[in-house]
């Protein structure tokens, strides 16, 4: 049989398309359906955090709750969330003084040690920003950290080598090496709670409601009303990380 060039190309294209489709289908079969077993569907959510600076009183409830909920190492330099206190001097607005005694876990001293009284002072709770385009996941050499389809950056403790690339890559200083496992660790946005329909421990215990978990894909989430009526800002927007911790009332001096 004579085969024309056209027939040959058509046949080749068909075979190519069909094999890749079959391969894709087969891969799906191999993987099973990982989320079919539970009622939680990642694709239906897009998680973020909204922090209202004006409501934060620096009580440290979030820091303590986070440590208890997630069994974060007790020493006062391992934090998944911590609170900073900024003091902005009106004569030097570009260089705020920041203190965060033990991450604010026991609150803050009443005034600054140097007794200054001018300027303004406010609290800034900090945590993993669960960036949509996170630098930390991009540098991981083994695929041990990743962003889920519902917008939460997680760590695979079994896969992590403890190489610390991600610790250096995070522009917000949110990662540390857990001395017990020697793997990277950070805020999971209490993913084990979110997927059970509970809010993160920090939001649960915040006495003033300064921290609010937000499901931006859920049209019924009250956060949409909040976002409409408040000006929000993320930390280090110039880094283009797609940070999803949205601050309301954030001062420009915050780094």
């Amino acid at each position: 049989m004579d085969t024309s060039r056209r027939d040959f190309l058509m046949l080749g294209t068909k075979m190519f398309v069909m094999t890749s489709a079959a391969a894709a289908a087969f891969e799906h079969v191999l993987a099973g359906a990982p989320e079919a077993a539970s009622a939680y569907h990642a694709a239906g959510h897009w998680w973020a955090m909204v922090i209202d600076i004006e409501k934060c009183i620096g009580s440290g409830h979030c820091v303590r709750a986070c440590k208890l909920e997630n069994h974060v190492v007790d020493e006062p330099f391992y934090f998944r969330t911590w609170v900073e206190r900024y003091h902005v001097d009106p004569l030097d607005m570009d260089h705020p003084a920041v203190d965060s005694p033990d991450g604010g876990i026991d609150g803050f001293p009443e005034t600054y040690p140097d007794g200054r009284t001018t300027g303004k002072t406010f609290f800034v709770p900090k945590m993993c920003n669960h960036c949509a385009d996170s630098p930390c996941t991009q540098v991981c050499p083994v695929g041990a950290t990743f962003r889920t389809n519902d917008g939460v950056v997680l760590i695979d403790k079994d896969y992590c080598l403890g190489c610390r690339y991600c610790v250096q890559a995070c522009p917000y200083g949110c990662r540390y090496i857990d001395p017990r496992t020697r793997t990277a660790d950070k805020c999971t946005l209490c993913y084990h709670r979110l997927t059970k329909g509970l809010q993160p421990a920090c939001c649960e215990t915040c006495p003033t409601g300064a921290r609010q978990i937000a499901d931006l894909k859920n049209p019924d989430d009250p956060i949409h009303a909040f976002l409409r009526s408040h000006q929000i800002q993320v930390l280090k927007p110039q880094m283009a990380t797609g940070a999803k911790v949205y601050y309301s009332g954030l001062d420009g001096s915050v780094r």
Partner: protein
Amino acid sequence: MKSFRDAAHLIRLAVLFAAGLLVFSVARAALVPKDFGTLGHYRAGAIDDVRAKPIAYAGQKACAECHLDVVDLRAQARHKGIACESCHGPLATHAADPGQMTPARPEARPLCVHCHAANTGKSTRYPIVDVTDHAGDDTCITCHKPHNPKLS
């Protein structure tokens, strides 16, 4: 036709390369978890690992299921927006089996002070006290009932 000179060298090289490739493919297939790459460049099972962690804080809904008296007491109080576990601590074990674990009463003074001590960073609208001056050595709950703190 005269064969390519020293072809045996190239064939040996090709065989070695093929063998190396085979070893790599087999080892890779054996070592990479089946679920790696199904959702992205990571092990899909890692998500379930994170989800499997136990909770420590039961959540406000769990508290309100039983402690209706306190819910009613707090309904009009200024502390109504604060979750029970904010002061009482993580109580998922108590919520799961109330008989197994009874929470200790929180120590009032250090707890109240966390929020109500004066601080330069607090909004002027927020109720603060001078801790040393306000009540002397008395504990806060001598006068203020924590669930409904306003003095009537």
